[in-house]
């Protein structure tokens, strides 16, 4: 099972990587330090599970999870957070599990087991919906990869057949 670890704190990532290393059948395929870095790396790495910190600068874990749902085969999302004030919000974006830091090895094993059983289907069904939290980015699929457009740079949205085209500061997607 391929795992991608996302946290803005290097030491927190380091620990998760070490713990996953001790779990049979799980391997870390990559690390990301922000929501944007995760969405950039996810299409190429095709992880089965993303361990996602909720509190990160600019784009938080909840928003990143909604964007992940736009992938062809979305990974299962397991949220990690230091203090469980986001548990309900996490269920809104159909996380497979929710674990608190410092993560226990046993608890992490359970979460990965759940992810193995249920896969990323939950996330796909969520279809990127969720509560109306303030979005910072729009997410577009361009030739199999995800492109993030900051809301501030969007000029306008245009309906074109089955698609919506985003015209933004840099180009259009």
């Amino acid at each position, binding site marked *: 099972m391929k795992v991608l670890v996302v946290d803005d*704190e290097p*030491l927190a990532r*380091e620990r998760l990587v*070490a713990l996953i290393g001790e779990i049979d059948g799980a391997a870390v395929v990559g690390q990301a330090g922000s929501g944007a870095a995760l969405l950039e790396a996810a299409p190429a790495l095709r992880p089965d599970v993303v361990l996602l910190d909720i509190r990160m600068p600019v784009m938080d874990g909840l928003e990143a999870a909604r964007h992940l749902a736009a992938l062809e085969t979305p990974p299962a999302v397991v949220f990690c957070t*230091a203090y469980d004030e986001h548990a309900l919000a996490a269920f809104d974006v159909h996380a497979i599990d929710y674990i*608190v830091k*410092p993560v226990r090895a046993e608890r992490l094993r359970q979460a990965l087991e759940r992810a193995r059983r249920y896969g990323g289907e939950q996330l796909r069904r969520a279809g990127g919906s969720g509560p109306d939290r303030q979005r910072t980015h729009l997410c577009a699929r361009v030739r199999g990869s995800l492109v993030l457009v900051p809301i501030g740079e969007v000029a306008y949205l245009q309906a074109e057949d089955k698609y919506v085209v985003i015209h933004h500061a840099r180009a259009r997607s």
Partner: protein
Amino acid sequence: MSDADDHRWLPPFCSLPTLFAVMLVAELVALIVVLAPGADGATLMRLGIVSVYLQWLGLLNAVVLCSLRGALDRLTPRSGLLIAWLVMIGVTTLAALLIQTMDRALGLGLTGSGVAAARFVPANAVLCALIGAALLRYLFVIERWRERVRAASKAQVDALQARIRPHFLFNSMNTIASLIRTRPADAERAVEDLSDLFRAALGANGAHGTLGEELERVDHYLRIESLRLGPRLAIRRDLDALPRDFALPPLLLQPLVENAIYHGIEPLPDGGTLDLTGRRLDDGWEIAIGNPCPARPVRRGGNGHAIDNIRARIGYHFGDRAALIAEPGDGRFRVIVRLPLEPPDGHARAMSARAR
């Protein structure tokens, strides 16, 4: 405020508000005595004489009770009030006797003649008993109420003390868990730093400390955050001008630094530089905490809450001789704490009260 002051239940008879109340009641009684039916003519002259007598009586009672306050305070409120009441009756009876004797010797006839003269002293005692009971009761209730307000505000200030964000605790624990594997020495120091912070937050150091200890606590806190945030947190310190032994309650600066990280540097993807400066002003000390921050606040719970807390505590400890000023700017935030040159006098007294 010393500890002994906290448990006083008897009103301070020498204080101006109490004296004013005593004089007001004395004057009211004088008016009643002069205007009452059966009194021989409501002349201004008589009002003057009765007023002078009753004011003298009232102030005499207040002075006697004021000097007995220390002894009465050691009794229970019930017996203390009873004794205070008996003392009032005793003082009034003696004073009335004295006045009557002087009056007779001088032959002025101010205390009446015949039956009225025989009734003068007992009437004084009974009136004093009635009015004294009502006045004592009123002052006692007022004092109780003041005491309750004082206790409530003290409790509020105490409650403001222990506020370290749970996020910080669990993130720090997570950092330590990670360090134990790779850098045990750093993990050890982080545990020590965290313990110091929580010792202060749980009130184990009492309500007293020094500026030097608080700056050390800020350092401990920043060391933990530096481990967590890595290169995203840069710190610039210029604090050498500050007096280390200045008396300052614990956790007056650390929460402001925590705020700067939580609302300012942590939500920025590239972090930023935290500026700590301390300098001497003409009439005090100034400590400034500056940080970059996102254009719009990201974190819930706003910045204002913690700042209001600290402001309330600064007000409680220093009165209006200290201030906290928040300066939101364009992409930057700065809070300034102004302290007086000397800590409040009450501090030294409170310390000696605790030592006893």
